[in-house]
């Protein structure tokens, strides 16, 4: 902004304040006095006059009046604002804003209002705040007036619009004006113009305005235009809602992906179904908990980095335990998948009970670092940072894993062992070691998933139980041995689940998805993206 512009802005603010305020400033005390005297009828006149004065100091007084906190002291007739403070009221002078000690209800007369007056006050405050020097306050006032759609605020809006320089606030004010026009008895042409303007907003509030207009308008042309606008808005909103559902679905899908991708490795490449996979996830979540506890007690400034510290640790803990499981149990059971299933189920019981004995059976608190809390608005989409990071994280894990499988020697050995074990062994690949590392990798990734899940799920010994069936379904649905299938499977199931939920409810939605997958597996036992060929048998 050039100095010239700044000067111009300053001048205009001063001018408007001077114009609207100077003549009546002296009368503020008088107007306030009118406010406290007489019946509801006089009070309404006084409120309207206050609003017309444009006096900024009147806004807090009117707000206090609306919330029943405006008092007149019996002893000196001073108008006071009283805020409850224990049994007493702490008092400030209404006009000057100076503190005036404290007092009890008995020493004061409350200035009473009724519902009708509350409405009037709200409009008055709205028009007053429209002139506030604070841009945020002005914007909020415009939004409030938009929702109120009161013909009475037209005048104030016109004044404010003339003075407003900020194009965004100006836009908000003209929308509020349009809403007020629709509530007034303005001519048809103006109303149609207003409808066009309101329609552009395309959100829930504008839908409310359009619906109200369509219901109440007498002019058929206005009625039709409003109805058409409302319909168009409804469609836009439905599209946004669908987009929001897709986002929720992607978010759920990324969680499924995280939980399933480790299983996709152990089941897909080794044919081993590890029922303790969910417990690896749980161990990752508890690792996060322990890391946060240590940070809380000894290095609180590191709290925001707690998840980053927990990630490698969770990978090592879960991966290490995975290798122990492979060496200690699973390698004796190769070629007996059903026995592997039972043994690892037993192991999951032991791990759950061990965690229960150490950490107790109640939920453990895992905090969110500051960069994962909060949300932002994208159009009509509400996106929380926590979910966004989990989606990003799951994609990073996925891509890293693909790279590991394609570009590293371990990946090469793993693929070799998967495709032809005897041949790989004959070529000098130590297959038992590759098995152990593969299993460790799958478990380690489950541990990483645990770190992410600690942010959105209850960290309890039962955390993992809920994920084993889902994970298996994702892997099978996507096609065993195909990591891209797992990605597509997880996202599809996530989105389908979220779209079913509004119609069927969360539980029934989940049942429907399960039934769907049961039927799907029976149609295509090898999943969406099946490997074909002799080697599969």
């Amino acid at each position, binding site marked *: 902004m050039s100095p010239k512009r700044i000067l111009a802005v300053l001048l205009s603010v001063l001018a408007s304040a001077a114009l609207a305020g100077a003549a009546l400033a002296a009368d503020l005390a008088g107007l306030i006095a009118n406010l406290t005297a007489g019946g509801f009828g006089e009070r309404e006149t006084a409120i309207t006059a206050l609003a017309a004065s444009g006096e900024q100091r009147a806004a807090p007084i009117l707000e206090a009046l609306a919330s029943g906190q405006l008092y007149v002291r019996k002893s000196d007739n001073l108008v006071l604002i009283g805020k409850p403070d224990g049994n007493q009221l702490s008092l400030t002078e209404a006009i000057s804003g100076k503190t005036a000690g404290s007092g009890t209800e008995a020493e004061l007369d409350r200035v009473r209002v009724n519902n009708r007056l509350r409405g009037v006050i709200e409009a008055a405050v709205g028009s007053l705040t429209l002139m506030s020097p604070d841009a945020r306050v002005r914007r909020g006032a415009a939004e409030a007036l938009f929702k109120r759609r009161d013909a009475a605020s037209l005048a104030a809006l016109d004044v404010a619009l003339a003075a407003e320089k900020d194009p965004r606030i100006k836009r908000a004010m003209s929308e509020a004006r349009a809403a007020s026009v629709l509530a007034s008895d303005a001519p048809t042409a103006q109303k149609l113009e207003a409808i066009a303007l309101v329609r552009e907003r395309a959100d829930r509030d504008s839908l409310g305005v359009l619906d109200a207009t369509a219901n109440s308008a007498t002019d058929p042309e206005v009625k039709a235009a409003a109805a058409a606008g409302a319909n168009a808005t409804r469609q836009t909103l439905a599209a946004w809602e669908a987009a929001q559902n897709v986002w929720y679905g992607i978010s759920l899908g990324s969680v499924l992906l995280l939980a399933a991708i480790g299983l996709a490795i152990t089941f897909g490449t080794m044919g081993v179904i590890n029922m303790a996979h969910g417990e690896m996830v749980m161990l990752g979540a508890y690792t996060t908990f322990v890391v946060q506890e240590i940070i809380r007690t000894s290095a609180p400034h590191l709290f925001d980095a707690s998840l980053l510290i927990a990630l490698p640790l969770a990978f090592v803990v879960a991966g290490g335990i995975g290798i122990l499981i492979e060496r200690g149990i699973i390698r004796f059971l190769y070629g007996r998948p059903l026995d592997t299933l039972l043994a690892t189920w037993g192991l999951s019981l032991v791990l759950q009970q061990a965690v229960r004995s150490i950490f107790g059976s109640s939920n453990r608190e895992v905090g969110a670092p500051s960069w994962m809390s909060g949300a932002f608005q994208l159009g009509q989409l509400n996106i929380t940072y926590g979910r966004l990071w989990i989606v990003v994280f799951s994609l990073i894990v996925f891509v890293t894993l693909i790279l590991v499988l394609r570009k590293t020697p371990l990946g090469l050995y793993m693929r070799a062992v998967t495709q032809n074990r005897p041949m790989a062994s004959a070529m000098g690949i130590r297959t038992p070691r590759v098995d152990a590392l593969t299993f460790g990798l799958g478990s380690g990734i489950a541990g990483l998933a645990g770190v992410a899940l600690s942010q959105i799920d209850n960290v309890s010994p039962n955390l993992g139980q809920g994920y084993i069936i889902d994970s298996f379904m994702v892997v099978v649905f996507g096609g065993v041995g195909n990591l891209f299938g797992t990605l597509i499977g997880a996202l599809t199931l996530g989105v389908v689940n979220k779209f079913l939920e509004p119609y069927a409810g969360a539980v029934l939605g989940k049942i429907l998805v399960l039934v769907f997958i049961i039927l799907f597996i029976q149609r295509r036992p090898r999943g969406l993206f099946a*490997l*074909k*060929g*002799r080697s599969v048998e």
Partner: protein
Amino acid sequence: MRSTSALLYLSGVTVSFDGFKALNNLSLLIEPGEMRAIIGPNGAGKTTMMDVVTGKTRPDSGEVVFDGRADLTKLDEANIATLGIGRKFQKPTVFENHTVRDNLLLALAGLRKWHRLLLAQPTKDENHRLTEILSVIRMEEQQYMLGARLSHGQKQWLEIGMLLAQDPKLLLVDEPVAGMTDVETETTAQVLREINKTHSVVVVEHDMSFVRALGVKVTVLHEGSMLAEGTLDQVSADQRVVEVYLGR
């Protein structure tokens, strides 16, 4: 579907796995009572051809007709087996937890429906057939021994006995002499020639001396199609066959 006098008729059969053509426009004719040897290097499509005929794999295109009337591409393994096609796998697969006699009883042509088997008792005829087969494969003494306790050679014999019990019109035999000594190979060739007196046989084999011992018409497969057909001497004189087997 074409009507044909051939026992087995394959025409233009193509099977592909993820773009790789395991069988490429393969055509083949087996006459009733014939014995045919099929040879070819690794990956020529021999096992896939067997899979297509027995219903394990569905071809992408082409005709497979058995006995001049049955379209095998529309039937599953059980139907095809009941029509009269028996298959012997490369690795002997007998039922390890059943006795030799029960193995043969299960293979015996006839009862296959589950509800009939619940109340079925072996009939006189069946017992007679079992005794007969047991004596053919010389396993009367081991008839109450569990399959798991048989030696490799005994399992091979039991499996041949099971094929006899099944009494198929066409017998598909996959690499019957893999890992056998020369003497065993010679015996097996004799047995197959014996079986061929009453059944049609298709043998898939690598071993040239065994194929020579059989002394039958030979089909050479290469990259999923037929490369040459004729007596062993004819095909071994064929320049293309030599190239395929010896490399260029």
